[in-house]
């Protein structure tokens, strides 16, 4: 599973750094199943989606918080089992 976190300026200002921190602190059994990538602007935030934005495989998630991302990844990983 590929998790892309936008580190463009808008998302960065709205807290994407804290999301990366959260992902880096995930337990090993989950961290092993994902690849974390940094992305610059997905070009979907201008007027449509609210930053910070992440992309898991092919789906965008807007207005995420560290807690939301953690839940999301954990549930996705357990689904794919």
């Amino acid at each position: 599973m590929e998790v892309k976190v936008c580190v463009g300026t808008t998302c960065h200002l709205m807290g994407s750094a804290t999301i990366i921190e959260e992902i880096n602190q995930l337990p090993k059994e989950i961290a092993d199943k994902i690849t974390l990538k940094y992305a610059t602007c997905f070009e979907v935030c201008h007027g449509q989606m609210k930053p910070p934005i992440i992309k898991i495989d092919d789906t965008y998630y807007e207005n995420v918080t560290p807690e939301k991302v953690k839940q999301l990844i954990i549930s996705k990983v357990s689904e794919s089992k």
Partner: protein
Amino acid sequence: MRVFVFNEVMKMRRQIMLELAKNYEKGTLDQVIDKLPKEIMNDLQFTTSNSIYQEKEIIKQRIKIYLGMDYDITRDYELYELKDKLDDILSAKSELCATDKFVQTIKEGCDSCPSGRYYVTDLCRNCVAHSCQNVCPKKAITIENSRAKINPDLCVGCGMCAQACSYFSIVKLERPCERACYVNAIGKDEKKAAQIDYEKCVSCGACFVSCPFGAMETPSHLLRVMYGIKKGEKIVAIFAPAIVSQFGPKVSIGQIKQALKKIGFHDSVEVAVGADMVAHEEAEFLKNACDTVTTSCCPAFVEYIKKNQKDFVPKISPAPSPMTALSQKLKSENDDIKVLFIGPCIAKKMEAFLNKKIDYVMTFEELGTLFVAKGIEPSSMENEDIQGSESGWGFAVSGGVTNAVKLRLEKELKTLKMDGLVQAKETFNLAKKEKYDLIEGMACEGGCIAGPGVIVNPKVSSSNVKKIANIK
């Protein structure tokens, strides 16, 4: 070092600034300014107990502060009244502009939270011992409904009950701003809202960081800078060493340097160059100095000495701060430029106001907003070469100045470090007992990378700065 949590106050501040900056960039600010609070309200999801009217009022006051206006003077102004005054406000000609206050309290936003009292929490188990009741010298504690209760009329706030309780069930209620302020500059006004005593305030920004309601704000130069760019001013942007890792893992300092030029600044220069000049000057001075020298880089530290340690005023280093040193150099080479300092600091606004060598001061937060408003993505810029020595970049962390000076000196130095105003009293007590050659002072614990205007967790940026500067 401060525990850095990205929170809703930061988010709100950035969103409001962003709306202002975007609208100014589009040229629509004067038309929409009175509608902005409502629009922003729709975007933000508040979970406070405030009514929408109060939230709207708070946003209104914030907008005025972000435009660079003085809260105390403009408190009663409605936003529509500013429509035809915007030019005067943004060129700082208006008498409504903030001048000598660098942190202000938005009274509408202040929760007037309780302080100074002791309070028995739910943790009280109504134990057999009742030590709290027995230890209280004023007999202020009674047991009601199976729980200890403090009579506020009798309580003198000695705190002995809190120490005596085996369950730690008695706590002291403190205001976050008061607790954070190590110079005791925060009091209360007649309505019990926080009030800053500017005779004591050193503009360090600790209250700005700590207030969970975001009621402490700093008048911004962001829109003034945008106005200056639009009017064709030749602004040179100089950025503090603490900029290391502020714009995320994908952005290098060289790219930020390039991005600043893209914004429309005449040039962009690293303050690390100024730091080298200062380190050199301080080392030269220390070669022959027979008395203690204190650093002068941190304006809040200098202000602390001026206000609280008058004996040490003559000992403040004659070298200017890196910001001032660099600005003077740039202005001597080119006399029609204006200088913008970009840093993590609120106190630099005070320094700029006092010495008049710098025209604008912005925080990294504000710079981020400016990038977004201008549609510039630093990570897509080309990488420029970086000036300044390793030790110059090290000025951003506590211990960095000492390190840079020591590198330039052959003789041994006896140094003392004040890492944060929390250590101020202790440091100066030591300095009075023994003679030290150099006292390094940083008002923010951890150094500039933990300043009030940073974007990134100081833990992350601190280790990156230390790597660059070879500080262990």
